[in-house]
């Protein structure tokens, strides 16, 4: 199956925004372009703290640099618009206007209506809410949930919690590429299945899930609702909400150069959900708590900027990732990819092992040379356990130990990728010599 055609990121059906059509070559030659300029400025900032050392940040699945425009919007909201959006006086009205604008921008990048976007404290809350809120709203119809073995911990743990409360959960297996097995989905659907939750892009290996097929299979046999954790895909791969008949979608700002501690849950109009946080009529009575106005303002600007250079920015990133994969596979004997082929996976994530080299040692050595990558997902990297995702892929333990994740952003340049290839090669050779 041609994953490329299916995922659609090389022939994207993105709405083409302003800034479209900057040819990739010109881009790379550094034609006057806001993103490249921003990059240089950021690089300088980052260099400042890294003692003038050149820094190559390739851990964008963990978190991304906050863009200067985003930081400025956050700062401005804190300085000038400090009212509580729920207040009736004019200070409150101004804060409310910030929320409205941000909601529109976040919705636009997703292809949703603003009324369908509910702000949360991040992707984790969005996932917890979606799973818990939908399960409890639907429990009279049934108590069976289907998800996959490679979801983010915030989906898996929410499912475990639901199991304790009497729901039953099926964790679908994946193949070597990290792609969910459709046959097992077909077998798992039951009369009492109320919810199917599958991520669009896996955060550790970058596999893209066959969401269209999943949606079709689910729709043909079950009234179950479909939730997608789109935290890693938002702004990077299109998600046809209508076509997939999605009920809910989770987003997070800090993965798209926005601030940490802000996210959103998309809820299709008419979908019933129980609130997760109660005690205030914010977010149309579905998510209580004084809104993180500056964070949300930053999320809005991050979404605007992400949309501006689509689809070119994503295509460029994908090409760089392919170049990175090829460079490492060709240059380092024994190197092998975990997860999908470079052309089939997400445009920004590469997971690769170098037998004989311990990932942690390599990550530290690279850090010393100013290159930032990670061993697995950020939230695992302080634990010593092997990642549940790599285990689910059925990799031999030799691969598990040596797996590093390299993840790009649209700010990543060709020079950085070439430099990363060279340095990783040197480090692996040195470590193997020892």
């Amino acid at each position: 199956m041609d994953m490329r055609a299916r995922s659609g990121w090389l022939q994207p059906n993105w709405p083409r925004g302003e800034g479209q059509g900057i040819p990739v070559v010109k881009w790379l030659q550094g034609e006057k372009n806001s993103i490249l300029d921003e990059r240089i400025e950021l690089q300088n900032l980052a260099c400042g703290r890294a003692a003038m050392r050149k820094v190559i940040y390739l851990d964008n699945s963990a978190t991304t640099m906050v863009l200067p425009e985003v930081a400025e919007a956050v700062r401005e909201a804190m300085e000038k618009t400090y009212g509580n959006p729920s207040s009736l006086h004019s200070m409150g009205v101004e804060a409310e206007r910030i929320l409205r604008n941000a909601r529109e921008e976040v919705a636009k990048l997703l292809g949703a209506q603003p009324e369908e976007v509910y702000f949360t404290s991040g992707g984790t809350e969005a996932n917890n809410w979606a799973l818990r809120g939908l399960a409890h709203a639907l429990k009279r119809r049934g108590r069976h949930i289907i998800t996959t073995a490679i979801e983010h911990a915030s989906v898996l743990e929410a499912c475990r919690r639901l199991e304790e409360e009497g729901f039953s959960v099926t964790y679908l297996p994946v193949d070597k590429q990290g792609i969910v097995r459709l046959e097992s989905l077909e077998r798992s659907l039951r009369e009492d299945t109320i919810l199917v939750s599958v991520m669009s892009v896996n955060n550790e290996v970058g596999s893209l899930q066959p969401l269209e097929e999943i949606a079709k299979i689910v729709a043909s046999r079950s009234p179950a609702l479909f939730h997608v954790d789109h935290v890693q895909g938002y702004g990077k791969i299109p998600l046809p909400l209508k076509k997939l008949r999605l009920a809910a979608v989770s987003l997070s700002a800090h993965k798209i150069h926005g601030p940490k501690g802000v996210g959103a849950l998309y809820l299709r109009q008419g979908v019933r959900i129980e609130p997760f946080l109660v005690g205030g009529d914010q977010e149309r009575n579905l998510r209580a708590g004084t809104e993180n106005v500056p964070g949300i303002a930053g999320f809005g600007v991050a979404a605007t900027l992400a949309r501006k250079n689509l689809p070119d920015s994503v295509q460029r990133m994908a090409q760089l990732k392919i170049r990175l994969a090829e460079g490492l596979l060709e240059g380092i004997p024994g190197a092998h990819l975990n997860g999908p082929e470079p052309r089939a996976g997400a445009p920004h994530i590469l997971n690769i092992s170098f037998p004989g080299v311990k990932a942690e040692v390599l990550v530290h050595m690279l850090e010393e040379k100013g290159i930032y990558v990670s061993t697995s997902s950020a939230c695992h990297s302080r634990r010593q356990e092997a990642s549940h995702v790599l285990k689910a892929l059925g990799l031999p333990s030799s691969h598990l130990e040596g797996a590093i994740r390299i993840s790009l952003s649209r700010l990543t340049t060709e020079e950085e990728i070439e430099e990363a290839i060279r340095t990783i090669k040197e480090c692996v050779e040195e470590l193997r010599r020892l």
Partner: protein
Amino acid sequence: MRKVYLDHSATTPVRPEVLEEMLPYLKEEFGNPSSLYSWGRQAKKAIEEARARVAGLIGAQPEEIVFTSGGTEADNMALIGVAYANQKKGKHIITSSIEHHAVLDTAQYLQRQGFKVTFLPVTPEGLVRVEDVEEAITDETILISIMHVNNEVGTIQPIQEIGKLARERGIIFHTDAVQSVGKIPVNVDELNVDLLSASAHKIYGPKGVGCLYIRKGTRIQPLLHGGGQERKRRAGTENVPGIVGFGKAAELAGQELESEGKRLKALRDKLIDGVLERIDHVQLNGDRERRSPINANFSFKYVEGESILLSLDMKGIAASSGSACTSGSLDPSHVLLAMGIPHEVAHGSVRMTLGRDNTEEDIDYVLEVLPEIIERLRAMSPLYKKAGD
């Protein structure tokens, strides 16, 4: 026109010093605290510093602080987390009828899940009686949750005494201290509390950050699952700049607690005395003595609170009726009703809450324009005319 912000219980402006400390974490120090490398480590260190500062403000140990997305999440977590972790011991919860909705609605949610909840009444002055708490305790009681300072009428509840009682009976005690932290002295040991909620944006920190203090050994489940953050007690990538801002705000609040407390109390008394002197048919809601230094809450008979607010807004004065998160609705405040204030009187209530930026001149200005506003509105009020007849 003069701008006077008198809605500090709804939210406060971020202090420049706080913003200053946050900015690096919004920009170059963007690492994920869970990452192994130095960027992540720097973020992690900053979080730990903030934790120590917040802990310092309330007399807690740093490891007893769990950062959340705000006061609402902290309240939700306290009630739900304790209820589910202790349900084998019993299913009874005691709270009051004047809590913030973040506690009330969570308690009602738990009721629907099969827990029994007692909503204690309050005195006409807006105070919970310790005897009522004592009487409500049963063998089944696993949690008492009473707020420290009420957000609408500013009354200070007898937390220390209730805490003592709870401790004697081996019942977990939570207090929503969102309105007291940084305004009056709060010490978790003196107050005998096991759990305490706080929120950064009420103390000149950023919105979207708060914390739950959890005394060591307290049985509680997490609310947000999936990620090892906050020692596995609260999942989700940390709002690093927000947390850093909370830390700084807490530090500053601690330094200025005494001086600001005194200054604001004097301003508050000037405001209360001035209003009661200059305007007829007005009452102060909430106990005069056991009251937050920043809160004044009045009922102006024969007028609508909303009309007063709009008139004040046109004069550059921001105040509120009821609490901010319910001020969009037209129901009278549940707090005023619980105090036994009649509907029509509750409807004419206005809350003015003071803060760092307020001066004597601000209060003079309010005392100058408010009587005119009330007089004008009353002149248009059929109720007032009838009462005058």
